[in-house]
């Protein structure tokens, strides 16, 4: 879960790090910051520097509910402006290359960090000497090595203890009083939530409003937790995608594009969901206007009952009676029974539908669908 700045700062303050004061007096310089989950807020108008509390409050009012590149600010933070000598970039994340956490550090933090050089420190544990050695190599000297080293160690400990996937401080400012976290991004690992008392309100990281169909699909998994059938992302194309299995879904998206198709959506169902859930997902997928084809495809299932899930899809076919081309390629437990029912509905409704089991390579059936779509287009032109 991605945390907003004020939530991340609260965690870091509890860890013993310094953050800017939120105590407000009438005189003074302030920073007003919209709490939105996006990069480069300053450039996008979501951060303002002002003098005097009146102005700060005025900006806060303006920002609440305002939209920044599609992100709406529900909360706005006012902080004291901090004078600093230098600003550093620091982040922590797990690195697959070394199978360890790493720290990424740059002496030149602040905006534009993507383009600048940064150094990587592989962390085998949270000992302080590792940070001191690193800083010494970076050219830091004397007290800096000790004090900055301690701040970095505390940040790393917060990263570990909170089970973060990412902790990014940009910048960490060097001030007269010590090192201050001016901005913080923290992404917590949902898989570790069982050992934490995280209690954060719901948030979205999409920079567009969810579509009506996406909201409907989300409800499917909320209403019934058996299996997954509620992941649906609407795209701009015209080939409806009914995809089973995680790895297979990615592979089939790539395949349809390779054969010239434009997916109307991305979805994924699996984990043996009940008939009703697959029915609802099928209805969502078929409800998009302007479809030219539908591909219902998955590998040879290990767990998912093909008859039970296909029953939901067949029910949707009966209600929608699509005229566009349909290709189904699926196999697994009770596939025989499922395909018998599919043959029945095909005949009954006179559907333009081809049926394949696993003697047809999965991704090859994308070509069958695209050939059918082309034939159909040619027919329409005549």
């Amino acid at each position, binding site marked *: 879960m*991605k945390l907003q700045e004020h939530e991340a700062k609260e965690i870091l303050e509890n860890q013993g790090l310094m953050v800017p004061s939120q105590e407000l007096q009438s005189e003074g310089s302030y920073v007003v910051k919209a709490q939105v989950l996006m*990069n480069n807020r300053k450039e996008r108008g979501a951060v303002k520097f002002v003098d005097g509390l009146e102005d700060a409050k005025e900006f806060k009012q303006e920002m609440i509910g305002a939209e920044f590149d599609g992100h709406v600010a529900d909360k706005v933070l006012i902080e004291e402006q901090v004078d600093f000598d230098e600003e550093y970039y620091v982040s922590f994340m797990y690195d697959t290359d070394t199978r360890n956490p790493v720290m990424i550090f740059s002496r030149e933090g602040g905006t534009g960090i993507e383009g600048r050089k940064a150094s990587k420190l592989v962390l085998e544990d949270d000992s302080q000497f590792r940070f001191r050695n690193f800083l010494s190599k970076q050219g830091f000297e004397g007290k800096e090595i000790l004090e900055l080293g301690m701040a970095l160690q505390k940040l790393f400990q917060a990263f570990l203890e909170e089970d973060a996937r990412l902790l990014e401080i940009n910048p960490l400012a060097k001030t007269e009083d010590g090192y201050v976290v001016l901005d913080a991004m923290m992404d917590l690992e949902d898989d570790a939530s069982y050992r934490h008392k995280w209690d954060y309100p719901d948030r979205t990281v999409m920079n567009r409003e969810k579509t009506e169909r996406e909201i409907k699909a989300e409800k499917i998994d909320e209403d019934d937790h058996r299996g997954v059938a509620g992941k649906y992302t609407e795209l701009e194309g015209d080939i409806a995608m009914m995809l089973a299995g995680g*790895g297979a879904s990615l592979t089939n998206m790539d395949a349809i594009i390779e054969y010239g198709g434009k997916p109307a959506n991305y979805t994924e169902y699996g984990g043996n969901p009940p008939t009703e859930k697959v029915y609802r997902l099928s209805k969502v997928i078929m409800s998009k206007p302007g479809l030219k084809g539908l591909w219902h495809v998955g590998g040879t299932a*290990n*767990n998912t009952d093909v008859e039970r899930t296909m029953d939901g899809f067949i029910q949707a076919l009966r209600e929608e009676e699509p005229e566009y081309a349909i290709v189904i390629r699926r196999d697994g437990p009770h596939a025989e029974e499922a395909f018998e029912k599919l043959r029945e509905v095909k005949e009954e409704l006179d559907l333009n539908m081809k049926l394949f089991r696993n003697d047809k390579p999965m991704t090859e059936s994308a070509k069958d669908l695209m050939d059918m779509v082309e034939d159909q287009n040619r027919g329409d032109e005549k």
Partner: protein
Amino acid sequence: MSIFAEEDTKLVIQGITGRAASEKTPHMIEYGTDVVAGVTPGKGGQEVAGVPVYDTVREAVEEHPEINTSLVYVPHFAAKDAVLEALDSGIKKINVTTERIPTRDMWELQDELENKDATLVGPTSVGVISPGKAKIGPIGGNNAEEAYEQGKIGIISKSGGMTTETAQVVQNAGFGISTAIDIGGDKIAGTSFVDALKMFQEDEQTDAVVMFGELGGAYENQVAEFLEENPDFDLPIIAFITGKFTEDMPSQQYGHAGAVIRGDQDKPSYKEKVLKEAGVQVVSIHHEIGKKLNQIL
């Protein structure tokens, strides 16, 4: 020969009394895997599909000293402890089915695995199968005899479902499988592509390896580095990397760490590029794996 799952595999299943594990245990036994014991703390004395259940791995190993492999099938909050328990009892091969283990737990296990010189496959692994010899985990379901034919192609996959589908494509091209191994797609994997390739290199039965990779992480890129550093590695490799379409989808960047440290390196197109440069046969559509095998073997 074959790798990890072998003729002499003697398996203990940790978490055997759980719903999924107890359902999958008979499939492994029917396939011919020697499942000699199960462990669930508090359920010692029970049986699952005729397999005796013990409270601790230590007891299981004392009663059945032939145990050489553990299948970890416990809930995610208990997984790290279960792996440590297996290591403490001297088990050197561990396959972890469990999904959603916190990354920190997997990291904290790395040292102990190294100290004990043990091999962990997973987490989030659907299993390992060496056709005709043994199957560990749910891989191939209850129909593994049909899904996997014995042969000389090794499969290393990050996706469970696509392990079986990849075997299908290999078999349609007229080849069989030496071992298919699902290494899982987690950030910190016990066995990487390179680790598995090294095992296949030692295996006389394996003549070529098929890799199924994904977006994210660097394990695919490590194969390119490994091949460049080891010019005498002579097993032909065919690779397919899934998830290219995601590169054209609008991404929601949160933080700069990825861009600063990795650039494009975790994207499928980058992985394809470095693998090709290192001499790997990269196919862009999954079923072309079959054609490619026929071309090179």
